[in-house]
């Protein structure tokens, strides 16, 4: 049996790598992918939490998966919308709230 702290460390490492991509990259698609890497790490953290509590429900992880899908859907739509307005998905170019 893997100790919960090992799973916590792996999830935390993924979370931090995703956070780095989120703050350092400019391409919209990579920023969206970095957010999904972070959420993947969160799911591992939930898995560690499930192991800690001894629960078998996995309900928290299902919610995180739904969040991943929602982020991917809405994020892709926002990028598509950005591209329609400015013909680019480089986030530095999108610095206004209005057109």
């Amino acid at each position, binding site marked *: 049996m893997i100790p919960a702290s090992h799973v916590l460390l792996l999830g935390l490492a993924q979370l931090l790598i995703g956070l780095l991509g989120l703050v350092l990259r400019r391409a919209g698609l990579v920023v969206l992918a970095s957010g999904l890497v972070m959420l993947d790490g969160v799911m591992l953290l939930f898995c560690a939490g499930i192991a800690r509590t001894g629960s078998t429900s996995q309900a928290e992880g299902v919610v995180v998966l*739904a969040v991943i899908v929602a982020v991917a859907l809405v994020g892709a739509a926002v990028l598509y919308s950005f591209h329609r307005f400015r013909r680019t998905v480089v986030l530095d170019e999108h610095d206004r709230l209005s057109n």
Partner: protein
Amino acid sequence: MQPILFWTIGVLSLLAALAVVSLPRPQHAVVALVILMGLDAVELFLLQAPLLAVETIVVASGAVLLVWSVLVRRRRARLGVPGRRRYNVTKLLSFFVVLALGLVLVDVVLQAAEPQPRAGSDVTMVTGALLSLVLLLIAGPVTWWILRRARSSEEGEQA
């Protein structure tokens, strides 16, 4: 499961995560993300969370492939960032903030002793399923509204 197997797959998944955030071409980053999710699904399966593993493979990879088909395959969007990578003060500060946050979090995790088992979570599968359903029911119309607004504004510009 042996820790060596866990960390072998774990290191591979960390390499895939690093590839997602460091590859210059966004298309390659999306491929690395699919690989990462597959490796995490294997981890979840080995951690005796088979439901999460199957959902990760099916649902999350489906979402990533949707992003791929909308933004990448049609080659409509200029996805890459031209020119050399530029670093400014904000990005350097952000890097060090992430580093500091990471050190704090790792310290918290290492300080936490192996937990004592307690009673199962209050969140039942039904609650989780209902929450997920509500979330997806909200995300669907929001996506549709954003796409519709973008299309109508472009049609207005063309007219």
